[in-house]
């Protein structure tokens, strides 16, 4: 129970970051930024995936992760690990883009990287330790 609550709490933080960046995207406002590169990153082509803001995809992913914490069973556990792993892989790609082609760092993206990494670790622990209802 505590593990699921931890996953939900971390996903909530990640979801808040994603929701803020989604708002910034659609409102065409400038994100609050201390790293200096947020706007450059937000306006780069890497901020969208075939026209869909990656922040919105992240928000959907975090909502799905939270949903998996309220359901018991191996299917939601597997789904949470899969979503978290995809998140980690895609965040890694976006981090590479910031360090390489874009040449600017967005603090919100780095914050998301940390959150999704924590969520992934917690989801793996959950998969390895949580008993299924049948067990």
């Amino acid at each position: 129970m505590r593990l699921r609550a931890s996953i939900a709490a971390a996903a909530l933080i990640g979801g808040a970051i994603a929701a803020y960046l989604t708002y910034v995207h659609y409102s065409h406002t400038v994100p609050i930024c201390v790293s200096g590169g947020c706007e450059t990153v937000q306006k780069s082509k890497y901020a969208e995936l075939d026209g869909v803001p990656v922040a919105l995809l992240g928000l959907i992913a975090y909502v799905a992760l939270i949903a998996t914490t309220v359901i018991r069973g191996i299917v939601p556990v597997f789904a949470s690990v899969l979503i978290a792993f995809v998140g980690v892989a895609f965040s890694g790609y976006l981090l590479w883009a910031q360090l390489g082609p874009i040449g600017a760092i967005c603090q919100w993206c780095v914050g998301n990287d940390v959150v999704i990494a924590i969520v992934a670790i917690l989801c793996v622990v959950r998969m390895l330790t949580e008993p299924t209802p049948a067990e």
Partner: protein
Amino acid sequence: MDRNRIYLLAAAGLGAVVVAVVLIIVGIGGGSSGTTTNDGALVLPTPSLAGIPQHGDILGKPSAPVTVQVFEDPQCPYCREWNVDTLSSVVANYVKTGRIKLQYRGIEIISANSVDGLRAIYAAAQQNKLWQMVDALYARQGEENSGWITPDLIKTAATVAGADPAKIASATSSAAVNTMLKDSVDAAKAAAIGGTPSFVVQRPPALPTQLQLAGLDPASFAAALNTVLQ
């Protein structure tokens, strides 16, 4: 430890890699839109600028009562998007009809390579081909920070824009270009521009107003512009 869980974990890892690779491929492929010519450059559905008065960085009739400053960076994908999706309708509905004139305000947002493009753009202004040059550069826009704005690309873009490439090359460091660059930076500071594209509407004696856009599409732009023009 349950061996099945280990297998599931491995399957999730494998599945995640597949999904992530697909997403990345979609991301790379979806980075640009438009049709391509034989020389690989994108053809932008920009308006025919023929017949529309152009003087320096101004597009439109000098008598137009309202000036809309267009703040752009030639490396900025969203600026290109606005040029592709919206500039045509703005020119047709507002510039051609004499309601507004557009003033190009090039500023460096992405990197120093942007300045190479801006110098070429302002050099084209000396031949009253600035807006065609902007178009021609967006048609060839490359990866941000990849150094795509090269002397060769500028030469090609200048030719396509109908400008004299040799004159552009010799004017990029001229005093006139330096002045236009400085004017743009000063205007951006005065209007507190934080990113591109941004649009500032000025109808003297009223103070300049930055357009608050819900989107860069023609409908959103027209709605915001109409609000200010009322």
